[in-house]
Structures are given as structure tokens and as C-alpha cells.
């Protein structure tokens, strides 16, 4: 019934649900924030998945730039679409967490702003892809923009260090070790790993769909279907 990518996607989604159940019922409550902190088990993995999509987009863009005449943008497009979904998820969960913690849904904080920019650039990539007719020009232009999007990721990640922000500083990867409790950290790290695998599986499945769609359109044009 399922091919391998779809099977791995289903398996990781089940793992993700188990991880969320553990986040709700197993890890202790945070002293300062109470239960609201539990959203980090969705928010932080979603952010890492958005970054992973940007990395895939960068790799796909470099490969496409190396041979713009033969390459297609199916992998780049799949990575952008999935990246946009995860960036919106990151913004939405951050906003839901921000209301009870900071007292506002949104603030022009550096990390929020740069993440919002990432969402806009993913959207911009899709617009550019639709605006240029198929061919090497589209491959080159979209690939260059893909690389520019990838440049934004380190800026987002380091924004809490470079700018004085409301967003909390880095808590996982920092000098002197993580500030989180061992159980919380273990669950968060496993959540990040699972979400990254979900993200990669989604990109892979979406890429297959794009290829299938293209081949159907081609056949339809030739009058086969």
C-alpha cells in the first residue's frame, strides 16, 4: 500500500505523536512558565525543520546552478513549500507562546522579524518560480534566490546573540552546556530529530508528487491521457 518514503513518513509521524504525548504527560512542568512552555516541543523542532528545508534548498540550488540546462527545480520547489509550512508553524506556535509569556501575540523582536523574513522569502521564491516561464532562466533565477534564502538561516539563528532581543538566548547549543533539565532536553532533542526526518520525508514525497504532476501534464499535452 505504501512505498518506502511514505512508510517512513507514517512511521515518523507516529514517533512525533508519541513524543508529543511524552511532552504533555511525562516531562516535568517548568518552574517559571508553567505548562505553557510545553509548546517548545512543537515550536523548536518546527524551526529546525524550517532550517533543514533551507539547507535542502541551498543544496538543490547549487546542484541546479551547476547544470541549469538539464536540472529541474522539483527538489527546490518541494523544499520551499515544506519550508514555508514549517516557518509558518514556527511563527504561529511562537506567537501562541508569546501571548501568555510576553503579554503580546507579536513583537518586532529580531528573531521573530528574521523568521518572518524567512517566510516572506519562501513565499517570494514560489512567486518567482511561477512568474518565470520554464527553462534555464527559471532554474538560474530561482536557484540564486534559493541560495539567498539559505544565507538568512544563520542570521536567524544568531539573531538572539547579535541583537538585544526579547526572545530568549540560545539554550540548547551554547558554550557551558545547555541550561535545560536533562529529561526536557532529551525529549526536545529527540523531537528535533523526529521533526527533521518528517521534514525530509515530506520534501521527498512532495518531490515525487511534483514529478508525477509534471509527467501527467506532459502526457496530457501530448494527448496520451
Amino acid at each position: 500500500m505504501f512505498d518506502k518514503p511514505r512508510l517512513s513518513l507514517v512511521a515518523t509521524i507516529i514517533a512525533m505523536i508519541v513524543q508529543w504525548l511524552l511532552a504533555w504527560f511525562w516531562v516535568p512542568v517548568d518552574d517559571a512558565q508553567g505548562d505553557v512552555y510545553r509548546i517548545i516541543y512543537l515550536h523548536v523542532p518546527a524551526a529546525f525543520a524550517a532550517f533543514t528545508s533551507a539547507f535542502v534548498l541551498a543544496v538543490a540550488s547549487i546542484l541546479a546552478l551547476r547544470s541549469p540546462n538539464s536540472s529541474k527545480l522539483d527538489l527546490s520547489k518541494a523544499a520551499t513549500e515544506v519550508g514555508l509550512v514549517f516557518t509558518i508553524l514556527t511563527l504561529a506556535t511562537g506567537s501562541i507562546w508569546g501571548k501568555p509569556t510576553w503579554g503580546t501575540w507579536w513583537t518586532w523582536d529580531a528573531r521573530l522579524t528574521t523568521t518572518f523574513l524567512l517566510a516572506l522569502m519562501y513565499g517570494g521564491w514560489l512567486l518567482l518560480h511561477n512568474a518565470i516561464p520554464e527553462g534555464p532562466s527559471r532554474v538560474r533565477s530561482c536557484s540564486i534566490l534559493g541560495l539567498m534564502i539559505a544565507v538568512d538561516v544563520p542570521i536567524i539563528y544568531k539573531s538572539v546573540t547579535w541583537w538585544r532581543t526579547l526572545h530568549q538566548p540560545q539554550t540548547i547549543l551554547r558554550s557551558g552546556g545547555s541550561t535545560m533539565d536533562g529529561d526536557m532536553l532529551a525529549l526536545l532533542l529527540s523531537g528535533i530529530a523526529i521533526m527533521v526526518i518528517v521534514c525530509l520525508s515530506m520534501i521527498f514525497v512532495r518531490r515525487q508528487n511534483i514529478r508525477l504532476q509534471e509527467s501527467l501534464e506532459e502526457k496530457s499535452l501530448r494527448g496520451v491521457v
Partner: protein
Amino acid sequence: MSHDPSSLQSTLIILRHSLRIDIAAKERLITPVFFAAIILLLFSFAIPEQPPEIRSRMMVAESLLAIFFAMQIALSRTFEAERQDKVFEHLRLSPVDSTAFILAKLLHVLLVGSGVSFFTLLLSLILQGQDFSLVTDPVVLGGCLLTLLGLTGIGVLLAAITLRADGQQIIFPLLYFPLSIPVLLCASEALIQWLDTHKWDDTMRGWATMLIAFDAIYLTMTLLLGSESVDTDP
């Protein structure tokens, strides 16, 4: 006997050609300046008079925004003349190196942008009642130049990649606005810090370093990848 011009010669020839077009069709130069003036005037009407200590901040904010929007007009038209003359369809056959072409366009926009920025800064000083010595302050001038470099770098690259896009006038600002925010943010923070304290402290150094870093990233990407965008399809 004819010979192929070197990359530098090609750059200078294209730069001179672009400037000649601007001078011949004067509206290409006037439009960004006029637009910057309108934005400054709108700010003057929209925001009530501020106390003197806030005015320098206001001047920085409105000048940078006016430069940003005026540059958007100049940048979105970077390759307009070449597109009308179908230059890109002949570029593959001509001896002109596409990197030289991009470099010439970069310098061209930078020159036009410098004029627009100087005018904008001057008008903003008048409207905000600031001291004219700011125009000769090397840090303020340096900050404006670095801002211009960043905006030009990203703008020329985006103009190149949206060259063949349908609705280029819409797609260009949609990409230019978000990508220029880091440059504008660093520039405004650095200039405000300088005007408030007139000290080259750690905060000032941090913002200036980040502004230079963004300029370097954008200019490198433009020079490395811009030529890819203007290459003609086989």
C-alpha cells in the same frame, strides 16, 4: 585591427553608456529624487513636531526610508534599457563578459544612488532642523555609503534574477523589501547610536561590523551569481 576589450574596459564602457542613457532621458534620474522628496514631505506631515533630542533619530529613520524607496525605483529599472534593446539576446554573442556587465550596472546604480542619498540627507536635515555639519561628518557619510552599497548589492542581483519574470514590477519589491531589512536595521541602529553618543563604542562597532558583513555578503553574491542571471538561454 580590432581587439576585445578587457573586463575593466568593458565595465567602464557599459557604465558610461548607462550614464549617457540616464542623462539623455532625464526622468530616469529625476524620478527617484522626486520620490525621495515626496516621502520626506509625507513624513513631515504625518509625524508631529518632535523634541530636539528625538529629531536626529527621526532624521535617520526618514532619510533611510526615503533612500530605500527611491532606490527601489532606480533598481527596478536597472536593466530596462537593455531589455528594450534586446541586449540579453545578443550578450552571448558579444565579447562583453557578463560579470563586467553586472559590475557596470552595480557602479551605475551606486552613482545614481549616491546623488539621491546626498539630496535626501540634505533635505532631511532642513526639514528636521538639524545642523548642516552632519553632511560632512565622516561616520554619517560612511554609514550612508555602506547602506547604499548593501541596498545596491541586493537590488542589482534581484533586478537580474527577476529580469525575465512576468510582472517584474511586482515581484521585485516583494523580494527587495524583506532582503534589505537587515541592511536598513544595522544602518539605522549604527547611525542613531552615533548621533546619540558620538562615541565609537562596542555597540556602535557591533552594528557597523554587521552592516559591513551584510554588504560583503550581498556584493559577493551579486558579483558571483549576477552574471548567471543575465546569461541568455541557449
